[in-house]
């Protein structure tokens, strides 16, 4: 934030946003089911989930655009469940930017300051600072329609930040931008967010975006928060099948539960033992069939028949620039082809299509879940 803003103490990280069992219904259907969420001050929290899972609903509840049907919302420790939107001091950036078309860039950015009765000279100064922050110095007199999508999004960001909001909300802010621009905007947003230390809730259904930008991610599905954790944990220790398959590529292999200790369990896949977290398997009997979830980069290829490997047949290579995706058929392990991600181009020549290979699984970073009742 512009110079002169107080430095936020880091030590007692109080919750900037707290949701206590917040529920929202539309007619008879539940759009958000008892959401519990605690976002410490300065955190970059991402809501990740498929279309219609309730991300926007949650954001709109925090912003005060919707009334709750249960539960309480706190911002900076203050109960705001009944507070109207215009008194919540929240900055929001929409996917379609929602810039005021009848105002120029400076007027757009200064809008929130005018509503607060800030003196003219100070508005001008802070608008100028905000423009510099989003690298749009010199664009003050443009109308929104004279700007590119990326520039409009920066203006929207500046407009939301200039009021020094208690929380910054972004609803799929980059999904209308092309891929390259999206990448650079992601970096820029992250830099600005870190610099200002503003608590941020970011909505996306793009898991790559979520993994690369967030301090923590809340994965949602069908109106429920399924897991709240750091990107690394979400990726390596998904809480359930949904999270495991929604975030990142994953192979689902047939396996069997062996012995179980307190936090870890031994599973066998094709007769080879692997270690998995025991948590998700609490209700499964020893010896029962389970599904083993393996990330494509956690499988190595070896010459067929090597000890500790399982046999498969290479069916396709897909060259991806930085790495090669090798698809291996192994009907005994999985109905679908198994995806193996190998660095370097030489994988294509080393493991020719049609050739037999050995699959070797890492001993860490594997998870297993009970077999689904119905392959829905």
């Amino acid at each position, binding site marked *: 934030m512009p110079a002169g803003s107080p430095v936020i103490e880091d030590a007692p990280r109080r919750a900037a946003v707290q949701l206590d069992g917040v529920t929202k219904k539309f007619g008879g259907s539940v759009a958000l089911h008892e959401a519990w969420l605690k976002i410490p001050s300065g955190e970059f929290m991402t809501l990740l989930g498929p279309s219609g899972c309730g991300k926007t609903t949650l954001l709109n509840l925090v*912003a*005060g*655009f919707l009334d709750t049907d249960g539960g309480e919302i706190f911002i900076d420790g203050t109960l705001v469940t009944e507070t*109207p*939107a*215009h*008194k*919540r*001091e*929240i*900055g*929001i950036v*929409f996917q*379609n930017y*929602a810039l*005021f*078309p*009848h105002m120029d860039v400076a007027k757009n950015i200064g*809008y*929130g300051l005018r*509503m*607060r009765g800030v003196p003219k000279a100070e508005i001008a100064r802070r608008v100028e600072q905000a423009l510099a922050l989003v690298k749009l110095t010199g664009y003050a007199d443009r109308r*929104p*329609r004279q700007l590119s999508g990326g520039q409009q999004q920066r203006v929207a960001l500046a*407009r*939301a930040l200039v*009021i020094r909001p208690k929380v910054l*909300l972004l609803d799929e802010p980059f999904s209308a931008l092309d891929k390259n621009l999206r990448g650079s905007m992601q970096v820029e947003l992250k830099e600005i967010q870190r610099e200002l230390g503003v608590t941020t809730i970011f909505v996306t259904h793009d898991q790559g975006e979520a993994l690369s930008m967030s301090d923590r991610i809340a994965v949602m599905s069908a109106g429920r928060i399924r897991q709240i954790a750091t990107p690394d944990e979400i990726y390596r220790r998904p809480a359930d099948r949904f999270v495991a398959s929604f975030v990142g590529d994953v192979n689902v292999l047939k396996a069997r539960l062996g012995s179980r200790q307190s936090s870890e369990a031994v599973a066998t896949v094709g007769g080879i033992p692997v270690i998995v977290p025991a948590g998700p398997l609490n209700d499964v009997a020893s010896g029962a069939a389970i599904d083993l979830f393996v990330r494509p980069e956690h499988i190595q290829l070896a010459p067929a028949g090597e000890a500790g490997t399982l046999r498969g047949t290479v069916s396709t290579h897909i060259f991806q620039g930085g790495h090669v995706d090798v698809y291996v058929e192994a009907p005994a392990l999985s109905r679908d082809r198994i995806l193996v991600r190998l660095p370097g181009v030489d994988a294509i020549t080393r493991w020719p299509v049609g050739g037999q290979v050995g699959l070797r699984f890492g001993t860490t970073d594997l998870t297993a879940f009970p077999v689904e009742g119905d392959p829905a």
Partner: protein
Amino acid sequence: MRQPLPQRLLGISGKLLIAAILGFIILPAVVVTIAAFNSKAILTFPPSAYSFRWFERAVSYGDFKKGFQAGLTVTLWASTIALVVGAAFAFAINRYQFKFKRALEGLLLSPLIVPHFTIGLGLLMLAAQTGLPRGYPLIVFCHVVLVLPFVMRCAYISLQNLDTRLELAAASLGASPLKILLTVTLPLLVPGLVSGWLFAAILSFNEFTASLFVTTQATQTLPVAMYNYVREYADPTLAALSVIYIVVTAVLLSLANAYLGLGKVLNVEQGR
């Protein structure tokens, strides 16, 4: 690059068709315009000699002057009242859910179906029954009823084109509901409201059928005065007046289009 023959023929015939349609639409106006410059006191076409004398008569004839004033009075009141009422109803229908919403919508759009003479006759009978004088209030009321659907349409379409996220953004930036209305909603609705008003004014000023029933000799609007004139005289004065009508309307609409962009209001354009 030449297109194949069938396509070229299709293109040419399409252009001819459009030209023919446009021709038929403006043909009456062309005939009347030429007749207006006839120097003889008969409505013939084509004229044998030309003059401006009928234009002079059109603007100096007493009944027309009075009719113009009466019409203007009625038009200004009726279209302004219709604007306020219509915008309020459009706002309510667009923003709120309530019982009988559909019914209200249908009722307000119904004058599009009910013939003008039915409304005029009905009001005349009501006035006669209740002893209400056939003065300006009655005529203004009649015109409000007639133009309300058009104003409401314009207001409603502008409201639908208005991205409600702009209002949400304003709220998040600290604007109270009243401030949002004044700084975001109304400024963005102005083109729609002004053009709605303009349509209402043009319709009201030209309205004849219903006005015939509810006006008197003292309050007759210009179209009624023209009707009474043509029953007595058959000279080109009316043609001259028609030309003035066309020119003034065209100028008003062009100005409105230049400043407000009527295209935006007339078709549902995707707001950005």
